[in-house]
């Protein structure tokens, strides 16, 4: 047994987190910053933070993740990180020539109270920021929220820095897709194009975190939301905000700054959440739903119709980020499945409210958010009553192996398989991919474990 110390007996914990279903803010800020064109994420803290975040994002995307650090030493921890940050800004603009440096803080620089706004102003005063270049920042203390909070804070930082309202509207719709894969951001853009809606999508990591092999290395990919787009986002008709945790704070900041109406949506994972997205897109932009999108939906519903027996009443445990879990569980319920155990380390009562509604017809369902809502607790629940399927990031493979439960990798980080950054999970086509994965997992398990006499050629 790999997780041999996980017992059936559940003891109440107040202080100890075991096998967390979350990580810390700065990695989210780094990922968000990579979704802006020609932007260098900068970690203001010890160099280990930056090394850890780059490594984790690199393992997940199998792509270059370029980011810099203030490399704090004991001296900077005592006297403040100003000198380090000023020197970093000079080195970054000289050597790596980004258009933007996106600084996020860490628990170290937050605890000592470095004022990044003031230090950035000083860098500008000292001529360390070349003309036409920018420093954006977000406060991302690791001891509040989770990686999702850090993502939200950085996106909000870009809105606060760039978005502006002019006298003239741009006729566009903003889309904040939340913490999703480059493939998903690409898919959102495709859907909007199919619907003939002009959008500004931010952040957008497609063509940054999924770059082709060309035999050349470029520091910044062709992708990423541009400065002009970010400026213009203040003139858009509305903002479709996907995800309460990762996207809404930026949408609210934009509304506060430029009076851009918010359409508060879930990440369009699965049938119902995608329906709401398409409907909102159609209504907000004043366009008809395109035939092509409606036919995609039809294909999804067709597959569900044809295969519902494989999904019905299957017990599922899911862990990960709340913006994903809410629509994902809703989709599982739509399929007739039973998401019985759901945990997220990201704290927030909103999760409880929404999951309560999504899981209202599954009385045995347990869900929890916050510090002790960890994978250890979920595993203990599973020990008490087994599930048929496990869905979440790579760390679930230890539970999957010990308990002989099929695992579908979904969310962040996935560091042992590829595909997530290339094939979308959003929209109707993404839902078909999720369906395929669920069926593959369940039926592969059946084909492997069933009695020989029950082996079926046709399913």
């Amino acid at each position: 047994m790999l997780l041999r110390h996980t017992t059936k007996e559940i003891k109440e914990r107040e202080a100890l987190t075991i096998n967390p279903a979350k990580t810390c803010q700065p990695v989210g800020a780094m990922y968000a910053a990579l979704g802006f064109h020609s932007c260098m994420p900068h970690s203001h803290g010890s160099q280990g933070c930056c090394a850890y975040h780059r490594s984790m994002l690199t393992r997940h995307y199998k792509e270059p993740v370029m980011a810099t650090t203030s490399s704090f030493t004991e001296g900077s921890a005592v006297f403040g990180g100003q000198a380090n940050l000023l020197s970093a800004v000079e080195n970054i603009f000289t050597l790596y020539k980004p258009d933007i440096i996106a600084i996020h803080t860490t628990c170290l620089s937050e605890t000592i109270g470095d004022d990044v706004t003031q230090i950035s102003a000083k860098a500008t005063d000292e001529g360390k920021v070349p003309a036409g270049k920018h420093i954006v920042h977000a406060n991302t203390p690791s001891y509040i929220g989770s990686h999702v909070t850090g993502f939200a804070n950085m996106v909000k930082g870009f809105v606060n820095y760039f978005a502006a309202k002019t006298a003239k509207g741009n006729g566009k719709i903003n889309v904040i897709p939340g913490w999703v894969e480059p493939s998903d951001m690409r898919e959102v853009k495709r859907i909007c194009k199919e619907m003939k809606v002009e959008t500004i999508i931010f952040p957008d990591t497609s063509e940054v975190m999924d770059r082709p092999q060309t035999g050349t290395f470029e520091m910044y990919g062709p992708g990423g939301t541009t400065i002009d787009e970010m400026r213009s986002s203040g003139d858009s008709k509305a903002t479709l905000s996907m995800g309460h945790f990762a996207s809404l704070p930026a949408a609210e900041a934009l509304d506060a700054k430029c009076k851009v109406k918010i359409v508060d949506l879930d990440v369009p994972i699965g049938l119902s959440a995608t329906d709401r997205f398409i409907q909102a897109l159609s209504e907000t932009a004043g366009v008809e739903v395109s035939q092509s999108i409606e036919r995609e939906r039809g294909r999804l519903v067709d597959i569900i119709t044809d295969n519902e027996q494989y999904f019905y009443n299957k017990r599922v445990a899911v862990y990960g980020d709340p913006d994903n879990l809410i629509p994902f569980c809703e989709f599982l319920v739509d399929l007739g499945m039973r998401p019985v155990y759901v945990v997220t380390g990201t704290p927030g009562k909103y999760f409880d409210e929404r999951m309560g509604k999504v899981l209202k017809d599954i009385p045995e369902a347990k869900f929890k958010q916050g510090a002790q809502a960890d994978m250890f607790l979920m595993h203990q629940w599973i020990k008490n009553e087994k599930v048929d399927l496990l869905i979440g990031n790579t760390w679930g493979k230890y539970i999957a192996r010990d308990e002989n439960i099929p695992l579908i990798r979904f969310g962040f980080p996935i560091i042992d398989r590829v595909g997530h950054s290339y094939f979308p999970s959003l929209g109707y086509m993404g839902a078909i991919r999720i369906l395929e994965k669920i069926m593959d997992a369940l039926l592969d398990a059946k084909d492997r474990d069933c009695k020989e006499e029950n082996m079926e050629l046709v399913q």
Partner: protein
Amino acid sequence: MSHEKHIAKIEKIKQDMLAAYPPKTARKRQKQFLVNQTKLEPKQEMQANVRTLPGIITQRGCTYAGCKGVVLGPTRDILNLTHGPIGCGFYSWLTRRNQTRPVDDKDDNFMPYCFSTDMQDENIIFGGEKKLRKALEEAADIFHPKAIGVFSTCPVGLIGDDVHAVSREISEKTGINVFGFSCEGYKGVSQSAGHHIANNQLFKHVIGKGKCCKEGKFKVAMLGEYNIGGDAFVLEELFDRCGITITATFSGNSTYEQFASAHLSDLTVVMCHRSINYVADMIEKKYGIPWFKVNFIGAQASAKSLRKIADYFGDAGLKARVEEVIKEEMAKVRKALEAIKPKVEGKTVMLFVGGSRAHHYQELFKEMGMKVLAAGYEFAHRDDYEGRDVLPNVKVDADSRNIEELTVEPDPKEYRPRKSEKEMKALKENGMRFKDYDGMMPEMEDGTLVIDDINHFETELIIDKYKPDMFCAGVKEKYVIQKLGMPLKQLHNYDYGGPYAGFEGAINFYRDVERMLNSRVWGHIQPPWNKGKALPAIFVDVSQ
């Protein structure tokens, strides 16, 4: 090209590189970049173990990573609790490929777990000791481990939580050996400080506490072997065949009891000099166990190291067995080399990694007939470049001064010189060297580049100038280099391959490198329509 011209050419590369830096950055970087010239007197000096310049895209990590991740991470039965916000614990959870082999289903193994106090803002404001205390009580109550390590992250030192006092308190209360590590990420200048902090605490709180050493006639403690990809398993098996007992490994495939009983061995050997040489020194001073450097990366190096161990014990039977094993293994190695050498000979490589690996792995490349153009460490010190002779002259700067140096005296009860003065003298006269490490530079060819703490800017520049066939570094560099259309061999995690230690490992490495260099994919980077007009019509052998 004459030697002088060659040196001048490389000096030019260095000057070009420095010219692109802001002046202050250039001043600092120039001391960490040299053209190797082994015959110069006085010898060349490499500046190392100094601060990384902010903003330059370094390979380096932090002290916590070195302490919790590298040194204590591979031990299966110590419950490692990270005291801090969630990230540090999360990132160091199972990500380093340290394999372990519990003896049975009952044997403790906490390695697949991540334990954290998951500090919140109120703990930062009002202090985190209360939460740490409670978390330790919960961990003790749920898991009943033999020992618990508490690892401090950045904010812990700043807010003044006394992890050592809380550890002592819980130790007294539960009877579990609980010890703290002040390994905040901002200490030191790299992971190296974390290794030191980890090892110091193991020396203070664990080594010497054990009473039962693994039985065997020739007992060796192996330091600085972390069992990435199963390296330690290979060495355990190899030593076993020779009749040598590895009593403890620091820290691959290790247990608390092994650490605790390391003082009962008769010889200490050191693999990774950087991360642990001082522990070997302390063990010698306190318990009388001599140490020397070994290297089991590379077939020749493995043979040499085995012979040295056999010579130390001086037993004729052991020497004969070692020779037998070497003979058997070298036959396999020769066969493997015959198959791959024609496909890789003359290819060029650069290695920028770690604190020992950039040196050790040169052995393997040399065996394959490949040429090392440049190398450097991520977190090593001067002695790892220039050899231990420079130790008395190494300047202790403000960052190093903060890392505790233990004062060690012979243990009144346990000090027992394993060899008499006379025996040691005889061994030395026969050419055996103790406490030896000559460093990387003397073993590199003249005219090669040596760069300490290389950054992304310099990496791109030297690749552009030299166009090597292969680059060795870590995961952060992997996909950057491969985008350039050349393979990067990861020497931290072995690209999820290995083991690479010992003879068996050497064969694995030869094959992996040959596969990477000659992968057909490199011929497919350009689509056929971009390869010139004539190409689409003819057969193109992509392996060329």
